[in-house]
Structure formats: structure tokens, C-alpha cells
């Protein structure tokens, strides 16, 4: 029974990894690609690692897999956030379909204040 369950979970996981790959190709700009990459890969890895747990059914394997899963869930958003931020600061490059951008105004405001800040203590 758990064998079938493992196989099903595994296939779902692998399928979502594939969805991440397809999304990486099809979506129009970095940010939407990141949606696909972040969500689908973490979910997919969750599925695959659950399959590992179900397959081995041993405590230490399970804990290693859970730790790996926890680590991925912890770090994938951070990595996405860093890439998105860096990409935006390098040049927004938003897709033409974009409707709303409230980050740009904030960023330009912050830049001007931080420049004056930097002007004061640029030597530290």
C-alpha cells in the first residue's frame, strides 16, 4: 500500500519539477518565472522526499529527508527574494503586461535618502 502511495507522491513531485522547468521557459519575465521556479520546485522536492520517507521507512532517513525539506522550505523563498531584489535593482525588466508597480517609487525614494545617508558616512 505504502509502495503505491510512495509512487504516487513521487510522480506528483517529479511532475511539479517538470512544471517548474516548463514555467521557466514559458513565462514572460524573471519575476513570473521565479513564481514557477520557487513554488513548484519546493513542492516537487517535498513530494520526492516524502516518497523517500515512505520508501525507506527508517527513522534516520526520514529525519534527514525532513531536515532537507525543512531547509528547502526555509531557503527557497529567501533565494527568490534575493534574486528578485537584485534583478529589480539591476533594471526592472518587468513584462509588458505588468499593471502595477509600487516597488519602483519606494526604491527611488529610498535611493535618494540613502544617497544622502551615504554622503554623510561614506567613510566608515
Amino acid at each position, binding site marked *: 500500500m505504502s509502495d503505491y502511495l510512495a509512487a504516487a507522491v513521487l510522480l506528483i513531485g517529479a511532475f*511539479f519539477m517538470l512544471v517548474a522547468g516548463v514555467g521557466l521557459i514559458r*513565462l514572460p519575465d524573471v519575476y513570473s518565472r521565479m513564481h514557477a521556479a520557487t513554488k513548484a520546485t519546493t513542492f516537487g522536492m517535498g513530494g520526492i522526499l516524502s516518497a523517500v520517507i515512505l520508501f525507506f521507512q527508517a527513522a*534516520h532517513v526520514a529525519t534527514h529527508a525532513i531536515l532537507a525539506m525543512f531547509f528547502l522550505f526555509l531557503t527557497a*523563498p529567501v533565494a527568490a527574494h534575493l534574486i528578485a531584489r537584485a534583478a529589480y535593482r539591476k533594471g526592472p525588466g518587468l513584462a509588458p503586461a*505588468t499593471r502595477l508597480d509600487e516597488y519602483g517609487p*519606494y526604491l527611488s525614494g529610498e535611493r535618494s535618502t540613502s544617497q544622502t545617508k551615504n554622503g554623510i558616512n561614506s567613510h566608515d
Partner: protein
Amino acid sequence: MSLATIVFSLSAIWILMKGTGSAGDFFVGLILAALILRFLRKSYHQEKSFLRVGRIGRYVVSFTRELILANIQVLRIVLSPRIRIRPGILAYRTRCRTPFGVILLANSITLTPGTLSVDISEDSQTIFVHALDITHPDEVREAIRLGLEEPVIGAVE
């Protein structure tokens, strides 16, 4: 988190990693955790947040539901014959007060339907969220508020 919590959770991780839970292993884990604490002693701040175990369960359930929904949405968008999205970045003012809460919320936002947190403002009160469908920004805000922010505040604040 208090130092005792860190020590105990580290030694718990240690035991889980080893896979065999005996008293000796727990002791070794405690020693190692103490070593790590000694090593990292300069990086602990005064900041504290409290975990409420009961509420965390609600958060986890809510988060898992959102995660699955998110993936189904990604699936629908990616595999539809024509991609029709209206993305945008909106500013979301959070009601979380602790840094840990804000960061947990931002991370959760990234893993839930159609949203991805791009940055947190300097005063850590505003999260900038990139959303795949932003036809009605207020709906997105409402979804975040109900689906994530309430459980997060419940869990860690």
C-alpha cells in the same frame, strides 16, 4: 528564542539526524549544542519571540493548503495553451510587529498562490509583493491577510 530553546532544538535535531535515540546520544547532542552556542556566542541578540505550539499547528495547516493551491495555480498558468497573466508589484502593509513574524510572513507569501515577496522596506512594515494576477490588488491583499497573516500573527506573536 531563548538560548535553552536553541540548545534543546539543536540536540533534538542531532538525535533525529543520528536516528537512534538513547540517553547517551542526547547527552552528546547537548554537548555539541553547547559547543555551537559557545562558538556563536557573539551572534545572539536580545531579541526574543515566543512560540505558541497550539497556534503553530493552525499556521502549518493553513500554509500547507495555500502551498497546494499555489502549485495548482502555477500548473494551470504554465500549462494553459496561452499564457495570459497581468503581473504587478504591490506594497502590502503588514500588521506583524516582530521581525521574525514579518520574515515568516514574507517567506510564506513567496510559497503561496500567485505571490512572491520581492523586498521588505527598511522599517520592515511594508512587504513588496509580486503577484501574477493583479487585476484587483485589494483582493490579493485580502487573500494574504486572511490566509497567511492571521495565522502567522497567531503563531508567533
